[in-house]
């Protein structure tokens, strides 16, 4: 068990840094995902002609196709960014706090 009380851990500077960083990145990435997806839904709801434009002169594909596929790919990229951050920063911070409190 830990040597410190839970309230004291919560007020510890390192723990605050860790939870603050984690909350910030989670909220930023969530908002990005919401903007990307509901931006796409918004285009379907309010601006179908935009999505129906041709990608290139004489081609058949519409702009809507890469936008839809891009939403899928970007969503995955965002999860990749989170993993990269968590592996590089978060795990290090967690280890540091754990050592400090002897958990």
């Amino acid at each position, binding site marked *: 068990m830990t040597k410190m009380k839970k*309230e004291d851990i919560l007020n510890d500077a390192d723990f605050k840094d860790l*939870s603050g960083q984690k909350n910030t990145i989670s909220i930023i990435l969530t908002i990005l995902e919401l903007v990307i997806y509901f931006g796409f839904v918004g285009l379907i709801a309010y601006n179908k002609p935009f999505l129906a434009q041709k990608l290139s002169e004489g081609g058949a594909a519409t702009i809507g196709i890469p936008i839809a596929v891009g939403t899928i790919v970007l969503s*995955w990229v965002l*999860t990749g960014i989170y*993993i990269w951050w968590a592996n590089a920063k978060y795990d290090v911070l967690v280890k540091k706090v754990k050592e400090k409190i002897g958990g």
Partner: protein
Amino acid sequence: MHQTVIGQANPVAIGFFVLFVITTLVITYWAAKRTRTTKDFYAAGRSITGFQNGLALAGDYMSAASFLGIAGLVSTKGYDGLIYSVGWLVGWPIIMFLISEPLRNLGKYTFADVVAYRLQQRPIRAAAAAGSIVVVLTYLIAQMVGAGTLIKLMFGLPFELAIVITGGLMISYVLFGGMIATTWVQIIKAVLLLGGATLLVILTLGQFGFSYGALFSQAEKLYTNKFLEPGGLVTSPVDAFSLGLALMFGTAGLPHILMRFYTVPDAKEARKSVFYATGFIGYFYILTVTIGFGAAVLVGQKVIMGIDKGGNMAGPLLAEVLGGNVFLGFLSAVAFATILAVVSGLTLAGASALSHDLYVGVIRRGVAAEKEEVKVAKIATVGLGITAILLGILFKGQNVAFLVGLTFAIAASANFPALLMSIVWKKFTTAGAVMSIYTGLIVAVVLLILSPTVWIDIVKKDEKAAIEKSVADLKAASAAIDTQVADMQKQMVSADAIAAMKKKQKAAAETKNAEIQAAVAGKAKEKEVLTTKMKEASAKMPQAIFPLKNPGIYSMAAAFLVGILISLLAPNKEAQEKFADEKVREYIGIGAE
């Protein structure tokens, strides 16, 4: 026209399927020897790696409905099918950023563990179990009815027999092999499905010189440019957002998905598994959309819709065209395996809600021996399995497409808000959580029943059909009048001809013309009467009490509002004090199981 063997007993398909069943039953036998404790039964001993769990999550999520359904939707509706595939994916990043790590660190076997972490166990577990079981049952009915129909189409088996086979195998996996067997069934199925779909896409693109441009050009030539643009599937903006919300947050509230995070050893592996799952699922949807466009061009909409109006056979038909009977057989077996894997995951999630939350958490007040809990979970598995078989047969021939929408709406409204608030909000109380869950559940169900999806298409189906028929009859009658009038007008003598006539003939011709004109005027009056009747009939068309097809936007908002208001009106000091403990465990995993 393309000759297909779909709908006949296909020995290749049966061969592949038997091979799959034998393999999975051997795995189940192996898993059964390793399944003793609750940790084994519910969580595969927490021995699954992030990569394996990523595949298993993908296996749980990529249902036959999404494989066959999205390919079918794209092949028949074009771009609109793509909109759905995007919606099915976007919940995964939300799971990763907001849910996966806290869920893993705070809980043991079910998401109710997290909601109940610092609140009163019994009321929370009862409410969360209700939310889980309704989601599991609605999804199970949709999958079972789909299974019966698809297997009948692909293997030529009777509907009831198909459901009994599916249910029997599903019970065997879960009952004997618990989460270990279920996880490996998911992994094998995910690999088969991803492999089969990849091969099908390579063969398809091979027909177009590996150029998507050429594929789209052919599609445009056959079905005009409308095929590559958003069409009529999404009509009102509010409905579009409502559907989007339900798809996105429903994914983050599916009990069988949430449960999978307890099969990995720690939070790090949990988040890794979401990264792999999102990659596999996204890749799979891109393949499926390609298959849909390929089928529209290489098989043709007429053939696809001739076999199944919903287009569900687009993928298998394309496989038959490109790879013959062997590939068709393989893909049919994979589709069957897909259904089996999804219903197994659902049954296990339902059984854990019944035993871990309802029996141990509520009835035994949290105190029960390991052996007893495993025994109850196994009884629940058999009970749920038999219920699923019976409901599947009961709903034979019914339109169950709305059940998938209902599942996601309930998951997004009953499960997700309570789960999220319990993690992030210090002032959340027991009463707030319980009322939020029941509000989300009831509002989602009631609004969907009152929506056009159920109220018009199912409840008032006959009335709607009768009115549509009478309007069509009136239209036909009015068209007949138009033809009659045209014929009459042809018989009229032209002004030029009259001018060339002698006096006597002229008078006769003019009289004739006047008679015809009078008759035409009479017909015009008749037509007017018909038009009024048509308007009257159309006005009688039943209106849905709730205008949206998807209730997500209102039911989610209601669940959040009720949860917040009740928590603020009756604050709970004890729950707030325990928040420190929850935060420490959530962020650094101290004390996590």
